[in-house]
């Protein structure tokens, strides 16, 4: 598996690794993780997804003090990954971001908004948040971002929550329903308690979460002509 360490020596809080698909691909999966990560899980996820034809940009953020600053860093990494892809194959046209945890999700949502606003950035077309409504840093800020995201008619979302917290589930469902009310394509899924980590579930195409995220990556419909 080909990969490039894109971490910036000036930012000790963020480790960025870019895994390249086995063959030239315009698909990019952006994974944003807050807190410590398991190297094995990341490697398994990256290996599976690159086999399935996705480039994977993994960002591990050890400390998020400012979601806006992290969003800028995410888009900087996205921009550098795009440059890398253009030099080897093509500009990414299908980008899906996955973010675990409230602050990571907030940063990712801001990055999505920036990517839609700025012409020089490739547009992020799908976002998967996990437990985005857990212990929120600033409720008003999240409400404003949620309302703005709901206006993006090309954005498809998966709102995932862990099973154990009813409050987080209600929060996720509430945002999902807001998107539905705006006519947006949105999936709500509660993660299975099957002893697997989030990345293990994501890597498994037969897992309900892994399957749902793949729906964003490759929708199954009758309009395909195989």
């Amino acid at each position: 598996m080909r990969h490039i360490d894109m971490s910036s020596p000036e930012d000790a809080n963020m480790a960025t690794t870019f895994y390249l698909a086995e063959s030239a691909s315009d698909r990019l999966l952006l994974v944003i993780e807050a807190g410590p990560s398991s190297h094995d899980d990341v490697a398994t996820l990256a290996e599976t997804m690159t086999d399935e034809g996705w480039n994977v940009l993994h960002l591990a953020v050890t400390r998020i003090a400012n979601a806006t600053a992290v969003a800028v860093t995410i888009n900087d990494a996205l921009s550098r990954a795009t440059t890398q892809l253009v030099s080897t194959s093509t500009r990414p046209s299908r980008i899906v971001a996955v973010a675990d945890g409230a602050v990571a999700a907030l940063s990712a949502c801001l990055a999505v908004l920036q990517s839609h606003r700025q012409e020089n950035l490739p547009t992020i077309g799908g976002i998967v948040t996990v437990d985005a409504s857990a212990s929120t840093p600033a409720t008003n800020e999240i409400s404003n971002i949620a309302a703005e995201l709901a206006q993006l008619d090309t954005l498809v979302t998966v709102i995932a929550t862990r099973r154990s917290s009813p409050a987080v589930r209600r929060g996720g469902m509430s945002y999902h329903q807001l998107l539905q009310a705006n006519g947006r394509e949105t999936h709500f899924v509660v993660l299975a308690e099957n002893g697997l980590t989030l990345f293990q579930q994501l890597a498994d195409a037969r897992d309900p979460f892994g399957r749902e995220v793949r729906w964003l990556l490759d929708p199954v419909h009758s309009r395909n002509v195989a």
Partner: protein
Amino acid sequence: MSAHTIQPDKIVYDYILPAKTGCLAFVAPGETLRITDLAGLQVVDMAVFNRSNPRDKLSTSYSRTRYKPAPGQKFVPRDKLLPGDTLISTICTPLMTIKTDHAERVGIHDVHNRMCNRELYEYYGHPGRRGCHEVISDLMQPFGLLPEDIPDTMDLFMNYHHDCGKGHWIIEPGVTKAGDFIEFEAICDCIVALSNCPMDVIAPVNGSTCSPVHVQVMEQ
């Protein structure tokens, strides 16, 4: 609160399935799958698989004919499936029970006909179109199933009935109204593959236009 209102914190899966699209719902034992026809007259082809062995899959004919009558009740091979009836697999595993059929006329679901497919569309002058068979095959491909492994589906809300006098089956527009739904309670761990039927040519299966349906899974 209506008896049919779902508590938000009981929902484990929720998705409005767009027209001409497919999705999977994973339903654990005791969980309920609800499929709501949002606009009315829309058919959804449903295949059910035993998650622990996906080759063990829905048999609509066994579901009609291998049920066990209650004591004192006479066995009759059924031509339709109603609330209380069980969906049975090809090796007679009980998969799901029909919990509710919320429509003015209950039991209007086809359990005899096989799905639309590429060949059907091609034969009738619509080459390149994919049918429910192709959609469900794609959905089940990660589980190691091939197109030839896909069973006959239960075609929810499809108005397909037999005319004994004429000696053939009749396809008519559905009878569901907006908001009508059907619910299934899982007996074993199930994978449910759904294809929101794309048929808008050949036969009036889905009324005048294909429309979205709401797919929800609720825990107890």
